[in-house]
């Protein structure tokens, strides 16, 4: 889980063109100005490619914070 979270933060930093240190703990679009809806779409695309999964519609609506993203992914990976 921690490993997945680190990976998510790394992807997010790359998408936003920030360094990992610039991403606050449990970041969300509300507190990170650069994380707009377009960047979110690119993040989703990159997460799916990185973890080789395809989010369901319900999961997509729940991808609200870094912690939630990590949680949803780890659930998916343990179920698969």
């Amino acid at each position, binding site marked *: 889980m921690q490993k997945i979270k680190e990976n998510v933060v790394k*992807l997010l930093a*790359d*998408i936003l063109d920030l360094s990992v240190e610039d991403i606050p703990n449990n970041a969300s679009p509300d507190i990170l100005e650069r994380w707009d*809806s*377009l960047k*979110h*779409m*690119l993040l*989703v*695309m*990159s997460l799916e*490619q*990185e973890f080789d999964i395809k*989010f369901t*519609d319900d999961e*997509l609506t729940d991808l609200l914070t870094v912690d939630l993203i990590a949680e949803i992914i780890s659930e998916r990976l343990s179920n698969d």
Partner: protein
Amino acid sequence: MKYLDVVMENRKIGTMLKSPVYKVSIISNITIVPLKDILELSLRKEGINAEVTLGDYDSVVQDSIRFASFDAVIVIWEAVNFINGLHYCAENLTARERKDFRQKMEAEVRLVMANLRNTPLVIVNNFSAASSEKNFALDFGFLDQLCLGLNQTLKETAHPNQVIVDIEKILITLGISDAIDYRQFQQTKSLYTFGFFEIYAESIKPAFMSALGRAKKILVLDCDNTLWGGVIGEDGLEGIKLSDTDSKGSIFLEIQTLIKVMRKRGVILALCSKNNSHDVDNVIHKHPYMVIKDDEIVLKKVNWKDKAQNINEIAVELNIGLDSFVFIDDSPFEIELVKAALPQVTCYKVPENLSEYPNLIKKIMPHFYSLSSTLEDSTKTDMYKAESARKSEISSYETLEDYLVGLGLELEIAKGNNIPIERVAQLTQKTNQFNLTTKRYTEADIRNMLADDSYEIFCFNLSDRFGNYGVTGLAIISFYEVDNKLTALFDSFLMSCRVIGRTVEKQFFYEILKDLRNKSVYYLVSNYFATPKNSQVKNFYESIGFIVYSNKDGKKDYQIELNQVALEKVPYIRVIGD
């Protein structure tokens, strides 16, 4: 490749390119953000320092004005998002609403195309309702009809710089389910997958290469197992596979036909094969299914030399840059050798599975074509058309002379500063068959001669009632004195193969002599230098009355007094300005 890998590599390559920025804009009514990095990387890998600017969401019309001054504009205009929810509400529109809507869209399409008519390159996807088929629509007849009509408008309004991409063909290669992702359509209006954008960027790349003058020009082909199945030196004329009756042979028949189509559209063909040349010639001349004939082949390098060396020679002889070359061979050894020695040449290996071979050729084709139907290209097509009209007429005349009389040939001669320098230099570079001395000159050489009183340059433009052949004949003459008598040396005398067989050369010579007579020239001196290609003119000077005074090692020297030349006017050629 993953999206982030593309982004990272693109950032890296972007800092390395120093060439001037090539400004591309993508204007769209859907979200196409990932395409920015994908397209930039794809073009930057070709050395094009592309910088992609995305237009504002859903403001195609305004953006078509805003970005018109860019180097290239891509228009991705999705029918399903013309208005919010069109894909599901289209069918509920009243007849009146549909009509209004159709008119509005048509007007917008015309406006956008007009706004972008001076942009050097415009790539427009044609309209398609295919993406709405799967998840949402059942079969919305209106949307399909709307697209059909708008595509017609696109076709009618497109200028030569505006390339229409058949988006459905790209969708088909991936399949709708892999190309379209509706999950975030409602929220972000993104429709296409990463995989789609990758294929899309590759598909439109030839348009950029061509717009930047980097289209391929020449296709160099191996023979054995590339133009026919088997090895001619071993299997013989009967044994090689090239026919419509066996599966392997029919593929090679298809390949040759595809290549011939390319030739017809202006691709230069050359052969490069390790073989005895008479074996290959035998196939070309005698094989009943051979589609590609001598006329279509500019150069044949059939020998046992290394292929990289042969290709290099072709480049020099034709004066074509190596980066304009595409080379096809079945041997991995030859492909690797050429790749290593001449990295600028694009090489393709004939696929192991022959059934994939025709698709490879079709994939290569777009890399050759300049997309614009510029004036030159369209006259080229006209020229081909005119040529076929001429050919079909030829059988209805009793003799060649009857035919020539009926052609209505018109010759227009230019000299001195009225000659088209670029074309004249090109003629010396390209003409091989009807060329007495085969001297190659650059534009600078020609300019120097024009500035020099001891030279005179004549060229002609020929036309007939079927069309214009353009500037197709050239004579370069230098003057000096012998025994105090002015002497004219025919340094070059040549004619494009397009106009051979019409006795134009005699009339051209006749006109030149008139000019030389006015200059009080006394002696005429000329040469014939034999090359592998120009044997058809080896007795040209004899035919117009010149006298050989030396003939050795493939070089003939002639001399005659001008007033002894008994050359008559060709009665059926009208000389313009005479």
